[in-house]
């Protein structure tokens, strides 16, 4: 017992010392907090009605995932610009935890709750049913237009346009490699690491391929799937497999650094996604397309502050500033910037459509009609005619914001479709 008493007294003494330190520390933070609140107050005075809006964000991972980092940056930027209060919940899995996180944010007084991952959707809908006065916004989801909930909204962007532009950069690079004698014309094979055989991925690699082929007509593509949105090892292995297979340029739709680093190691040029990988891959990075979510966040904050309804399906475009390309990397070919600018201009003018049916064939035939599965159901019922005016109307705001292009066009071969 004596020994225990000794230990206890030692612990007690240590605790007291700690609490002393803690106290002194506390005053320090208080001071900091005071100055911080002063700063926000002055900031708030300049701001208008938006400042009493509170936004809650739910992220699948944290800033270590390029996908979530892109959302986190957009959210911070938009909230600071609007001068509104915000709360972040990171590492929320796609399950009941998402529902609980959404409810906790609503309980904490958030007027808007936003979730960033596809699998969050069903749980956001459950929360939206429970809190009719709170606006629930969900990126990449597919169900808002069929759920009939006035406070549940989907959002996406015409990222296929960004992919197409990035594809042009890839095609220019292939042309340069041909001109330099590094490869011959029949070796212009592109590799693509995808996550799932999901429409969003299919739409992404098809538009990227069409962009590349628009400048390098001999281009072909091979696609492999990892069966996960974030699996660094699988993405790296997938990239290595494609490189061994003779792919001379890579791109990916998966969230880790797996594919870009594999490319850097092998010296294969890479078009990345969700943000620049120039610092980690200085020799092989060409360009990256990404969705900038700040315009959407600014839009929903403004809508709630001014009592306006939020679109059920909001589609960001090049013009809204939602679809952006990063700065070109050192590996980009000469003249890339001009070619991209030209195509972008044509897109904005409406003269260039990414999925122009004259530029691709399916099983050797040009498409004249296609029923897509726009309304999500367990039987994948094809329900909506999406070929209009000679092009596939992807992410039409009248249909739904999330992509539904799921055709397998000629020139692209899928290596594995297990996922």
């Amino acid at each position, binding site marked *: 017992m004596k020994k*225990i008493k000794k*230990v*206890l007294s030692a*612990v007690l003494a*240590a*605790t007291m010392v*700690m*609490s002393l*330190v*803690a106290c002194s*520390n*506390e005053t320090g*933070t208080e001071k900091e907090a005071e100055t911080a609140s002063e700063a926000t107050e002055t900031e708030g005075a300049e701001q208008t009605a938006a400042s009493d809006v509170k936004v809650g964000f739910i992220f699948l991972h*944290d*800033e*270590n995932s390029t996908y979530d980092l892109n959302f986190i940056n957009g959210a911070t930027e938009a909230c600071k610009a609007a001068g509104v209060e915000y*709360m*972040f*919940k*990171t*590492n929320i*899995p*796609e*399950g*009941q935890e998402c529902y*609980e996180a959404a*409810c*906790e944010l609503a*309980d904490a007084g958030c007027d808007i709750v936003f979730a960033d991952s*596809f*699998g969050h*959707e*069903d*749980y956001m*809908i*459950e929360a939206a049913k429970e809190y009719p006065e709170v606006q629930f916004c969900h990126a990449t989801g*597919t169900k808002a237009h069929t759920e009939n909930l006035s406070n549940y909204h989907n959002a996406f962007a015409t990222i296929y346009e960004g992919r197409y532009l990035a594809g042009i950069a890839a095609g220019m690079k292939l042309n340069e490699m041909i001109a330099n004698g590094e490869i011959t014309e029949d070796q212009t094979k592109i590799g693509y690491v995808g*996550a*799932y*055989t*999901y*429409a969003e*991925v*299919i739409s992404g690699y098809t538009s990227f391929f069409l962009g590349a082929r628009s400048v390098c007509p001999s281009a072909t593509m091979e696609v492999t799937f990892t*069966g*996960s949105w974030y699996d660094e090892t699988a993405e790296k292995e997938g990239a290595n497999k494609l490189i061994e297979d003779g792919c001379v340029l890579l791109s990916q739709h998966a969230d880790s650094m797996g594919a870009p680093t594999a490319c850097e190691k092998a010296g294969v040029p890479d078009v990345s996604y969700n943000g620049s990988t120039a610092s980690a891959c200085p020799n092989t990075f060409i360009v990256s397309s990404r969705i900038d979510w700040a315009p959407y966040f600014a839009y929903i904050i403004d809508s709630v502050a001014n009592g306006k309804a939020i679109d059920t399906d909001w589609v960001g475009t090049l013009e809204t500033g939602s679809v952006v390309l990063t700065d070109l990397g050192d590996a980009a070919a000469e003249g890339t910037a001009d070619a991209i600018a030209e195509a972008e201009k044509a897109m904005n003018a409406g003269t260039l459509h990414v999925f122009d049916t004259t530029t691709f064939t399916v099983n050797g035939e040009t498409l004249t009609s296609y029923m897509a*599965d726009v309304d*999500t*159901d*367990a039987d*994948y019922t094809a329900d909506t005619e999406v070929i209009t005016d000679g092009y596939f109307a992807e992410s039409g705001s009248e249909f739904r914001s999330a992509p539904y292009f*799921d055709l397998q066009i000629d020139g692209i071969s899928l290596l594995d479709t*297990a*996922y």
Partner: protein
Amino acid sequence: MEQKVKEPRYHIVKRADISGKEAWIIRVVAILSALLLCAIITMVCTGDNPISIFATIFKGAFGTQRKTWITLQYVAVLLIISLALTPAFKMQFWNVGGEGQVLMGGLAAATCMITLADKLPNAVVILLMIVTSILAGAIWGVIPALFKAMWNTNETLSTLMMNYIATQLVAYFTIVWEVPKGSGKIGIINQNSNVGWLPNVGNKYLLSIIVATVVTIGMMIYLKYTKHGYEIEVVGESQNTARYVGISVEKVIIRTMLLSGAICGLAGLLLVGGINHTITTTISDGQGFTGVMVSWLAKFNPIAMIFTSLLIIFMGRGASEISTAFELNQSFADILTGIILFFIIGCEFFIRYKIVVRKDLGKENA
């Protein structure tokens, strides 16, 4: 003189017997020192005030009414899984296959929800879910037990490997039933018709808590007051003794693993039918393994397990609240949880052994 130098300054002695009071003092000291170390690390790494960090941990678990309910629900599920593993551990059968047994129970429930939704009335679907998920868990548990009973295979390996089979089965059916196509996700099953959703009792959190209470009491009675419970204890102490007194060891192993798997299946049913309404490969979230820790820390005592599972859930939820409130990385929360668990598990050493310091140490040096 030389002899005295060779004598170590301290040595470790196994405690013959330790009073309950003494053991609890050691545990409290361990928790306090864990918190102290957490506080130091927090201050060194972040400069944040440790007191407010601890307040945040508490708020994360019990800050609002909803948070309290969620915490209790999590405790309930972890408790059920831990209770399921307990009889197996008590007879020294190392069932580390709780994860797989939970998944199989969940998969069975999800299968009923998906395939029978428009064919049978809701009540029948729920009844079938209960029967099939308990059965599925029991079958997954009894396969390694049969192997053990018949061929004396190593159950640690076989139960562990059954986990992987279960995970891959769930992964396979996720792709079969994915919505929309290619997404790799099933999503909430029967979101609008709610067929196969276990009914709300009072509120949506209470059902699991009630089930956990029933299972806790049942398991306590089963282990302490029934012939089966006694047989499990004898087999655990010594299989030869068991054989000598006429207990069929094989029978006890098979019977106990049927029960262990069945209760895991029940946990799977609650996770799929009552809480998540979907099935994913990660739905049991490692609780098949955490349950091992809960069960061991509580020394296989069902009542004590309430507290150990509460402690682990409390820490986990508190830690994730820290990462929200202080905008710290989730890894920081994991560090704190790791420290606390290390101390809690480590203090068991000091309960079983004591360190005896050489008595004449100070005098000799002086």
